[in-house]
């Protein structure tokens, strides 16, 4: 058994947003392709958490959907325990079913991801019955009760409907459902972003306990760096579909290297120095349909030079981290 559970190699996803063939012919409007994910590579060791952070349009949710097979890549591949995920899902029935059991996903909005007409017990039991992991009746009921207990809900909650629960409890239900097939790997797309802070703390603590008890591997997607610091073992920073920095957690927060990572860390209001005034980086995330040339961050970067406008930086190793920045490579930045 290798230490690496998930490996992503040169993963790209392009969406064709062109107008229809006819209107292109009539009005002469050009074809438009959105590069939502652009040659992203990383790996996740078994039992650890990789966090992906970035602002809207950086491709983090698309990566999550690619990893669980809800989207197919335009290029590159995702290896799960050494096997190509998309090839397995396409071709092989029995291994595909086993894969679906081992990889599960938790979504951001616990109000949208649970069917309002199903009882909680039915919601949690569905994957068990669908995958043939329990027979209907007493066996399934017993498993549901165990799962609800594992996420801190009472067995009697199974008879209730989603609308009778608060946001935090609903997210517990989503987690119970995701755990039903005894997965190894959970892809969590902003699982606490819709929750209040005190409830967020409950859910994050629960996820950490479950990881320790069951040896789970997480891909944790978030825009909140403070949450990322709490949950992650390693962190990838995305900007306009590309990985601009990857580092073990301690290193990233101690010594962020990419100017974008530094900017993100500096942009977060801190509790500890009230009245602090900052120089927020100017500008906004550019239109992903027309990304800037060279390094996509160069229009907002205080360290940009001519080379940054022309040449796209590669992700290079730097003291145990990986950074895609000419300034770092040239030694202009530490």
């Amino acid at each position, binding site marked *: 058994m290798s230490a690496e559970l998930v490996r992503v190699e040169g993963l790209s996803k392009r969406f064709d947003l062109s107008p229809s063939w006819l209107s292109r012919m009539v009005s002469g409007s050009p074809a438009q392709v959105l590069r939502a994910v652009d040659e992203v590579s990383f790996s996740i060791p078994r039992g650890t958490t990789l966090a992906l952070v970035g*602002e809207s349009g950086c491709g983090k949710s698309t990566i999550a959907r690619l990893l669980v097979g809800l989207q197919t890549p335009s290029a590159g591949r995702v290896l799960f325990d050494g096997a190509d995920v998309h090839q397995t899902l396409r071709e092989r029935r029995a291994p595909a079913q086993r894969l679906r059991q081992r990889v599960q996903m938790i979504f951001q909005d616990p109000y949208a991801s649970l069917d309002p007409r199903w009882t909680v017990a039915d919601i949690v039991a569905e994957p068990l019955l669908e995958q043939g992991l329990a027979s209907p009746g007493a066996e399934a009921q017993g498993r549901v009760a165990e799962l609800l207990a594992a996420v801190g809900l009472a067995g009697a909650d199974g008879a209730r409907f989603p609308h009778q629960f608060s946001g935090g409890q609903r997210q517990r239900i989503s987690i119970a459902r995701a755990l039903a097939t005894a997965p190894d790997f959970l892809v969590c797309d902003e699982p606490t972003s819709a929750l209040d802070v005190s409830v*967020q*703390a409950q859910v994050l*603590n629960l996820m950490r306990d479950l990881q320790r008890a069951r040896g789970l591997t997480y891909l944790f997607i978030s825009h909140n760096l*403070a949450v990322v610091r709490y949950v992650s073992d390693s962190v990838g920073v995305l900007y306009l579909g590309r990985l601009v920095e990857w580092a073990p957690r301690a290193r990233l927060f101690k010594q962020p290297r990419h100017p974008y990572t530094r900017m993100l860390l500096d942009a*977060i*209001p801190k509790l*500890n120095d009230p009245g602090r005034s900052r120089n*927020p980086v100017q500008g*906004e995330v550019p239109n992903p349909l027309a990304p800037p040339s060279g390094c996509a961050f160069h229009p907002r970067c205080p360290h940009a030079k001519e080379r940054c406008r022309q040449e796209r930086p590669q992700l290079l190793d730097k003291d145990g981290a990986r950074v895609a920045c000419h300034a770092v490579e040239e030694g202009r930045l530490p």
Partner: protein
Amino acid sequence: MSLLEVKDLVVEFSGRQGQVRALDGISFCIEHGEILGVVGESGAGKSLTGAAIIGLLDAPGRITSGEITLEGERIDRLPESQLRRIRGKRIGAIFQDPIAALDPLYRIGEQLIETIRTHLPLSREEARTRAIALLEETGIAAAEQRIDHYPHQFSGGMRQRVVIALALAAEPQLVIADEPTTALDVSIQAQIIGLLKRICRERKAAVMLITHDMGVIAETCDRVAVLYAGRIIEIGPVGEVIHRPAHPYTAGLMASIPDLDADLERLAQIDGAMPRLDAIPSGCAFHPRCSKAQERCRHERPTLGSVGKTRAACWFPNNTAAT
């Protein structure tokens, strides 16, 4: 005299199941030029407080008792026509979603000019000049061209700048900003908060900043009020409330925020959730979730009282030695 004074404000909703009390005896004031933060979790009543002040409570919600005064003048019982003259002119508003605050069918210039001319005796030309100056001040580049663009031609952050320009168009004394940065990316949030703070300070406008983000409060506000289940449970200077919270709920809330500057072994958590409005516990509304709760908390409702430099509604506040 305070700029705004809210006294024993009660807002109730009547429905099929009877009356539900959403705000229960809220009292606070805002001084001229002061930035007051209002913080709380969903359902605490922070947005309702803002809506009640500017007279935008949606039916069936209504103010059933209490009073709101602006420079000593009652504004909670005004007819709509008079209220409209206060709204925009003396109290500006900024909401969470800049796309909903702007009319998609009109150029932003027309919206600004209309707002300015409704409240100030200016000609169209003068109003346009003023609108361009406002847009420049809120950091919109090439304002002279941008003024003739439609809202959809602006990015989210730029739209919120337009909304700020709109809220400040008639030089209000008070700006109510309800989650002004929640829909924006982190790097844009910092820009918008910086802008709001600077522009209001320059005009000596007071701000009531409603948010769930304690970091934003810490950086921006002078004082902060913490809401729980429709009541203010603590109010005081920002530094005191954040670093020496007197109420166990405030303390729990602060401890449950993940720290950007430290590796934590475990987050403190407050078990349970905010009660539903139709099932507010007796006595102190926080008692079922409070680790310090005693018999008295279950029966008797605490009122705001001084604890050190802040005021908290708790029978057994933290650092009682300081009282």
